[in-house]
Structure formats: structure tokens, C-alpha cells
């Protein structure tokens, strides 16, 4: 479950980002808070034994954060909030595919 805890801490960082980077644009606040909420939701739901694959919904979130970075104007993409999105998107893309209870073999092998 370390991957889900990692995702949760990334969600906390994303929720704090507007105050750390002092966003100039209003949509960045909305984006940070909504992505952070969804990230927390999916990673916490993955703790439930029936919803253990919910963390895979974090993959579209990672893609969304990356898209913002890659579709932004080059001068805007180099600003701290967008660099934050690209870094978080790449890390989230790697962590979100790690299965819950990954220290154990998959169920069919147990």
C-alpha cells in the first residue's frame, strides 16, 4: 500500500501548491484543488478490498497534468506551477500503475 500513501502525499502537495507557487491565474487554483481531491479519493478508495484497482483512475489524472504542461505555451510551461504539473504527472504515471499490496503475489498465485 506504500504506492497509495505516496499518491496521497502527492495529493497533499498538489493541494498546497497554490499557496507555495502563488498562482496568478484562477483556473490553476481550481485545477490544483480538483486534481488533488480526485487523487486523494482514488488512492483512499484503493484501500477497500473490493476497490483495490481504483488507483488506475489516477493514470488519466497523470495524463491530464502532463497535457497541461505540453500544450501550454513554452514561456508559460517554464513557470513553476506548470513545471510542478509535469513533474507530478510523470511521477504519478509511474506510481499509479504499482498495484495495491504489491509486496504480495497477485491473488491467482496465492
Amino acid at each position, binding site marked *: 500500500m*506504500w*504506492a497509495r500513501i505516496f499518491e496521497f502525499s502527492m495529493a497533499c502537495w498538489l493541494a498546497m501548491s497554490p499557496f507555495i507557487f502563488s498562482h496568478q491565474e484562477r483556473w490553476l487554483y481550481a485545477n490544483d484543488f480538483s486534481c488533488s481531491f480526485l487523487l486523494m479519493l482514488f488512492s483512499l478508495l484503493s484501500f477497500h478490498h473490493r476497490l483495490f484497482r481504483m488507483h488506475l483512475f489516477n493514470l488519466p489524472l497523470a495524463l491530464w497534468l502532463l497535457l497541461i*504542461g*505540453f500544450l501550454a505555451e*513554452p514561456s508559460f*510551461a*517554464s513557470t513553476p506551477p*506548470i*513545471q510542478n504539473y*509535469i*513533474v507530478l504527472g*510523470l*511521477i504519478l504515471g*509511474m*506510481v499509479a*500503475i*504499482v*498495484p495495491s499490496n*504489491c*509486496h*504480495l*503475489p*497477485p491473488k*491467482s*498465485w*496465492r
Partner: protein
Amino acid sequence: MTRRHSLQAIPEPWDYNPSKWSQRVRICLVAAVATLIAIYMGLYQWRLIDSVWDPIFGSQSMKVLDSDLSHAMTRIIRLPDSILGALAYLGDIIFALAGSTRRWQDRPWLVVLFGLDVIPLGIVSAILVFMQGFVVHYFCFLCLVTAVISLLLVVLAYDEVWSCLLYLTRVYRRSKSVKILWKAFIGQATDIGLEVGKAMERGTDWRG
């Protein structure tokens, strides 16, 4: 047929378990050093620090990090190249930590992903760094250190990837079925996968 198997099994062709924790934690520690070095260089490229420490080449490091090639890469990947390197090393850590001590058989996709992150990416990045003297005409001590670490990671990680590929190859040879190979790859237990895994066992590694 029971599908339970020993998590400490030693697969062919080794005399130890390449998926055991001591092996993987070693990779994590080495990759963590590279991650920290790459983040340090990335902080300079983000202009969060004023200079980069280099005991051998002095200011050449900063010239490498500020080179036209580096700026061109930043325009393409939208991130300083050192930060992208740091994320690749972080990926090594994440994929090394995931999976059981028999993941060469029960989660081959994870081992293959780990192998792709460590081996081809590590070799290519090391070649690029070693070539910087010819392309940029300057050298960067910390870049060279991370390149050596990349090659060290390849040496530390290839054994597990080899056993995993050997397992997948044997599953395909035995079944002649892409469907069963795919099931083995994504970590679904099959009778053929179990038999091949058992046949590959050379004993038990209790050393942790």
C-alpha cells in the same frame, strides 16, 4: 493443482534469488544517490541555486548544463534534462520496490518495465553523457558520476530481468500460445506458468 509457490525460490541460471529484497534495496540505494545528484543539477537549471559544485572541471559543469543542446532538450521535453534524469532514477526506485520476492514469475510486466527503465535508458543516457565532451566540448563531473551509476544499475538489475525473460520464453515455447504468454506476462497464474516456474527453481534462498 495448487498455485502456491515458494517466495524464496532461486531461479535459473543463478545461485541466488535476484528478486530478493537485499538485491532490490541495493538498487534503490544506488538509484537514490543518482536521484539526489540529478535533482541538485536540476535545481541549478531551474535557477533555484546559483552554481554547481565540480571539483575537477570547475565551471565547465555549468557550461554543460547551460549548453544550447541542454536548452534545446528542455524545449522539447518541457523540463530541464537533469530533472528528467532524476525522474528516471526515481522510476528505478519505484519499480524496484514493487512486487514480491518472486516477481520474476508472478509479475513479469513489472520486471520488464523495471528492466526497460534501468537497462536501455541507463545505457543510452550514459553514452550521451560520455559523448558530451565531443558535442558540447565541456565536461561535467556530476553528470559523469550519474552516468557511471546508470551503468552500475544495469549490472545490478540485469539478473532479475534475465530470469524473467527466460521464464516468459519458456512459457511461450511450451504453450506455443500468445494468449498464455500474455497471461504469464500480466501475472495471471496458469498451469503451464506454474510448471515452468517450478522447473526453473534451483533451490531456496533464505538469505533475505
